[in-house]
């Protein structure tokens, strides 16, 4: 917040100006009323009226600049916070994104950020405005009659106590409500994601019952918040009313005793509306402050997540290129919360320019293994070596620049296909993109799209099939001319024939590129220089296609099953 201190100071100055005028105004009004209650002339009244308008004009100017400075300031802080937050978030590893639901992250980056903005803008502004106005009014009042002033402000400690008490309760209740709200979202989300199974088992009534419970819980906790508010808000109003009674009863009594004039009495009466708004505003301020701090906690939690995978002390910035030698040394990976490691003591070596296929059943650790190379994941034990150096020594940007990764399920941004292919390679020439498209066996599909490469993907454009998505991802990986190409079951959504065509073209193109190829299909793996078979996180077989077939183990069984599939697909 340090960088904004001068603007806060300027805003605070305008705030004092505005509040000073706000206190002067009832003083003038009071004087006018005092003047009215004695002998007076209409001309004199005109002066008072003019003074009022003058003070109000000055107040308006102060108020305008106060709002303008402080609120734009809060928007600027919001802008910076949001940029900082996103800059921080893009450095966080996949593991972080696995543990937070997207909806939750969205809520924090939008809703919570907005609450914090309210805290730093209107929250700060109203709090100081109320405080300064109170003090200014108190000074003006005390100068007129301190006894009555004391009486009016006597309930103030009570006000701040109750604001504190209700504020804490609001805070706690509000957190409960947030959780209930998340539960409803998650419940509906789960329901929709499994709609077929639920329909098949006729779960409609049970699901409605489950939803009814979530819904009722949310209602109950919201009513809990209302239980707080229904006391707090009227209480603030009532306290203002008490001030009225104090002035009316005690002030009136003093007028009768001749201790103060009727004019002073009326002046106090006209001060009270000025106090009304701060009192009511106090309720709003408490709300803003409590929500803002609750949200700040949620944001801080994100900002305190350290990027576990980043350049650090081990980084050797002299490394500016990667040749493509890959070695795994006794690597063990265990996901948090999992009972068993996903990879157990895996060692392997792939010389630069050679290819390795990794086969195995679902959950055997294939994807985990390839995620280690571009450091989407770091091993718990053992080392990953790139060109003989620990992967942690290679600057992350250099390492990833050298890797072309085609994931199992690719994500396409709602932009043109061209933009999607150029992701992270904006400088690529048009012919390079076209070449990559051709290498991915995607050119005939692209030619059929309404705007060819400029066709938009996603809801405002066309929806790509699984196979088309995978080939876009492949072109995306190829256009950056990687030293290391990783195909994580990248041909699962195309038929074996297309797969064959893609792999042949790739081979022609990738003669000196290290290739890691995860596949559940033997047909894709058989052409690799070497094949490893993973089972429950261990390498159980390794060798060439021929050697493994001769071994008569897991690989051979997979191979035979594959032949059946192929036979079925054939005409």
């Amino acid at each position, binding site marked *: 917040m340090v960088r904004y201190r001068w603007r806060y100071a300027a805003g605070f100055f305008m705030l004092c100006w505005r509040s000073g005028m706000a206190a002067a105004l009832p003083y003038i009004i009071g004087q006018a009323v005092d003047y009215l209650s004695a002998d007076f002339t209409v001309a004199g009244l005109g002066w*008072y009226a003019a003074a009022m308008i003058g003070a109000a004009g000055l107040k308006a100017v102060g108020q305008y600049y106060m709002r303008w400075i402080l609120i734009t300031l809060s928007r600027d802080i919001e802008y910076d916070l949001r940029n900082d937050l996103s800059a921080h978030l893009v450095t966080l590893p996949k593991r972080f994104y696995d543990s937070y639901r997207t909806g939750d992250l*969205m809520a924090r980056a939008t809703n919570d950020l907005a609450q914090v903005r309210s805290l730093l803008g209107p929250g700060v502004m109203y709090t100081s405005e109320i405080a300064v106005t109170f003090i200014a009014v108190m000074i003006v009042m005390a100068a007129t009659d301190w006894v009555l002033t004391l009486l009016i402000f006597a309930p103030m400690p009570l006000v701040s106590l109750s604001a504190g008490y209700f504020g804490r309760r609001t805070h706690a209740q509000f957190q409960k409500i947030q959780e209930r709200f998340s539960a409803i979202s998650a419940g509906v*989300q789960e329901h929709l994601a499994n709609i077929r199974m639920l329909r098949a088992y006729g779960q409609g009534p049970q699901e409605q019952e489950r939803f009814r419970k979530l819904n009722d819980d949310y209602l109950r906790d919201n009513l809990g918040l209302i239980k707080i508010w229904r006391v707090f808000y009227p209480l603030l109003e009532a306290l203002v009313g008490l001030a009225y*009674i104090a002035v009316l*009863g005690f002030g*009136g009594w003093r007028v009768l005793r001749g201790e103060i004039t009727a004019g002073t009495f009326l002046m106090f009466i006209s001060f009270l509306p000025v106090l009304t708004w701060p009192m009511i505003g106090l309720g709003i301020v408490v709300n803003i402050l409590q929500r803002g701090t609750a949200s700040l906690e949620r944001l801080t939690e994100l900002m305190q997540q350290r990027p576990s995978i980043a350049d650090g002390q081990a980084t050797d910035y002299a490394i500016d290129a990667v040749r493509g030698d890959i070695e795994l040394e006794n690597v063990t990976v265990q996901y948090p919360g999992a009972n068993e490691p996903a990879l157990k003591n895996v060692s392997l070596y792939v010389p630069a320019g050679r290819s390795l296929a990794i086969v195995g059943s679902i959950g055997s650790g294939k994807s985990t293994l390839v995620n280690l190379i571009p450091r989407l994941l770091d091993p718990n034990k053992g080392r990953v070596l790139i060109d003989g150096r620990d992967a942690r020594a290679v600057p992350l940007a250099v390492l*990833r620049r050298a890797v072309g990764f085609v994931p199992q399920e690719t994500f396409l941004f709602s932009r043109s296909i061209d933009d999607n292919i150029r992701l992270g390679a904006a400088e690529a020439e048009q012919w390079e993109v076209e070449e990559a498209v051709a290498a991915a066996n995607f050119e005939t599909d692209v030619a059929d799209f309404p705007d060819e490469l400029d066709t938009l993907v996603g809801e405002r454009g066309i929806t790509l099939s699984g196979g088309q998505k995978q080939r876009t991802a492949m072109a995306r990986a190829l256009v950056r001319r990687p030293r290391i190409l990783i195909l994580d079951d990248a041909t699962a959504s195309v038929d074996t024939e297309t797969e064959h065509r893609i792999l042949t073209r790739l081979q022609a193109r990738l003669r000196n590129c290290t290739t890691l190829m995860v596949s559940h299909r033997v047909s894709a793996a058989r052409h690799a220089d070497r094949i490893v078979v993973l089972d429950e996180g261990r390498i159980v077989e390794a060798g060439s296609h021929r050697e493994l077939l001769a071994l008569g183990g897991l690989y051979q069984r997979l191979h035979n099953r594959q032949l*059946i599939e192929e036979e079925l697909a054939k005409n």
Partner: protein
Amino acid sequence: MSPQRTIGGEFARSEVPPARVYDAKLMRRLAAYLRPYRTLVGLSLALLVMHSLLGVTGPYLTKVAVDRYLQPKPEERSPLDPLLPEDPVDGLIAVSALYLAILLAGFAARYFHIHVMNLTGQRTMRDLRREIFAKLQCLGVPYFDRQPIGRIVTRITTDVDVLNELFTSGVVAIAGDVLTLAFAFGAMLYLSPVLTLVFLSIAPVTALASFLFRKHARAGFRAMRAAVAKINAFLQETFTGISEIQLFNHEQATLDEFAAVNEEHRQANYKAIRAHALFYPTIELIGVAGLAMLIFFGGKGVVEGSLTLGAVVAFMQYGARVFRPIQDLAEKYNILQAAMAGAERVFQLLDTPPAAAETAQGEPGAADGLRVEFRNVWFAYRNEDWVLEAVSFTAEPNEMLAVVGHTGAGKTTLVSLLLRFYEIQKGAILVGGRDIRDWPVRQLRKQFGIVLQDPYLFAGTIAGNIGMNSPDVDAAAVRRAAENAHLAQYIQSLPAAYDEPMLERGASLSAGRKQLVGFARALAHGRPFLILDEATSSVDSETEHEIRKTLETLLSGRTSIVIAHRLSTIGRADRILVMHKGRVAEIGAHRELLAKGGIYSRLHQLQYLSESTRPA
């Protein structure tokens, strides 16, 4: 009064606010949701009237105190006179006591008003959520194929919350403001019609200022919503595509683009801030001008004897009260606009015509036998891209029919059609001798036990996952099913046995055990037909044996359609249906198909090869 929340990134497409703030049709429809609570709404309004009325009595009491006791004007009478003692001190006490009583009544009115109003709002919201959820139950599976889940979740959560805000902070607050204004003006008219007219002379200026503000605010508000939508969409994509962004060194470019969107949002806000910063002081300035006129003309009235001092002071207090509601207009305007947009989206969902399949009443009645028949079935998800072409076959009672075919041959579609998730275009499907379109859809689905590749396991207990909280599956049935699925021993070994909590998607179970839970579920529900989509991957050898044995139990006494991947499963089938590119290529018993020398016989040779190398 619940907080506004934003979730998901679909705002870019659907969050653009409508042009109108007030839409009579929408309002009428929204009002209908209050009908069940009309007593509460009436009460709420009565309390609101009471609270506003009590609120305007204060200045009048001051006036009475001034004119009767502090600067006595004997000629000035008030309706309160008979109640008030002559002695000034007693009189002041009486007025103060009266004030206190009114204050307490006001407190009570406000307390109950807040309670009743929010109770109504929250209940209405709950009803609307229930209605939406119930509506989802009668929408067909194709609807869910088209709509992103996040969008539907937003409808039922955020959008409904906004509607609550419309009721509590929007409509009711506006009603309260209008009442306060009306009562204050009433009191002013009662005190002095002339002075009221003087005060009202500022009304046109106020109206003009409000009009100008609304014009600017609307533009700023729209730009803001659009910018927020962009930010949300951008964040959503960034979070979902984070791996791609990191892998492809796209971080900096992403941040640059985000900064641009963020800047757009900031600029839109600047406009709105300027409008607000101008509007609030302007209204206040106008208000003070009004007060100055009151003092001037009121003072003149006092000199001329047409007004009392107390009346002028009371007048000024009323004048001060009139301006807060006008200033708050800005706030309420935003709420109204957001709420109207939310209402439109919610009603759009509610107006989606229900799927005929999901609401089919059919003729109640039992299955006549256990036969399943497809008669010349044609089906396409879209237009005429046929996924199934002229498919005809039968599964005889108690028969196990294995369906084999390559990926995309239409195996899974067969299952979806059988359960009537989609409507076929041509032909007929008969279950138990009845066309599925004649079955009440719920009853139809109750005929099937279903085990899918990835059994849907939800957060809850293990017993809950087997019994699925169905009323017709009791604890004993769950235990029996667990025993028959060879799960009982494992479950007993868990700390809480059958009440052991399970993580979402059964994350704590191995793949094999998940499958067994799926089997146990089908066993527990004891349905006459079975649909089994066998898992493609081999499971650990530990559970492989148990799965085979459970399958045996599951298949006996049922008509089963099994999408088979494993050779051992195909070998057990009574007949085999070979699907090829949406058509039935071959169907028959193992021997028949072998003799035929078609696809299946070629397969068998490979199978033999494969099976022979399989460990026993």
